[in-house]
């Protein structure tokens, strides 16, 4: 999977490294901004009220 991505990135090894770094940052951003905020309320840390109002 990662090898496939590496092979399909254009440019020299340095450009590839830079592009993969940008990809990683983009993935982390999407996770922190959208995926985790959605997933977190499914865990029990939010239940602090009585009767779940």
């Amino acid at each position, binding site marked *: *999977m990662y*090898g496939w991505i590496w092979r399909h990135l254009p440019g020299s090894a340095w450009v590839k490294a830079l592009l993969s770094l940008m990809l990683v940052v983009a993935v982390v951003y999407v*996770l*922190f901004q959208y995926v985790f905020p959605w997933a*977190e309320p499914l865990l*029990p*840390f939010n239940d*602090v*009220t*009585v009767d779940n109002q």
Partner: protein
Amino acid sequence: MRVVVRTVSELCITAGALIVLFVAYVLFWTGVKADTVMDDQIDQLQQQWSQGSVRQPKVTAGASASPARPAPYRSEKPFAIMYIPRLGFTWNKPVLEGTQVGTLKKGLGHYANTAQLGQPGNFSVAGHRRTYGDPFKDFPRLRRGDAVVLTDGTTWFTYRIDKGPYKTVPSDIEVIDPVPRKSGYTRPGRYLTLTTCDPEWGHSHRLIVWAHLDSTQPVEDGKPVALRR
């Protein structure tokens, strides 16, 4: 065969990285975000108050125990700041109307349909034990006699804790009744209830403390004794 092994191991590494990231998010990032948001809410409040958009109810002499009835709180908006010296001298959090998941990310949540601040009945507030700034992390350290101080911009309200932390189950809604069951209060009064979850990271139980309104004073008179160093 090699491809399969490689793909599976790559997936495992990805899953591991994902879990580590998620833990970092819950432990650390929600706190960073919540601190910013809560400071924002407090700034908003202070700006509102300094502009005097809160109408000044004229507190007449001798009526110190019954300040004028405040306007209904707007849902999901901050209306007060809470201070609990026992949880730290700099501990202060905004109190917002409502206890929805989104509201509790921005501060403490006032149970809609419980009494308003300083009014007869039970002013009930919920807060996160963990995540989102850990506002009630040290909840079990609260003791009888501890002060819970709130201000709505015109008045300081000092509540004194009478009982707690009391452990109960999530369905026990009678703890936020006007005269809470198990609180030891027998007559109607001006009470305060704080709720959070227990155990720290779990949701099987709730921790409760109860307090009664001890004193009020207009903000012009300076900070209440409980907040003076």
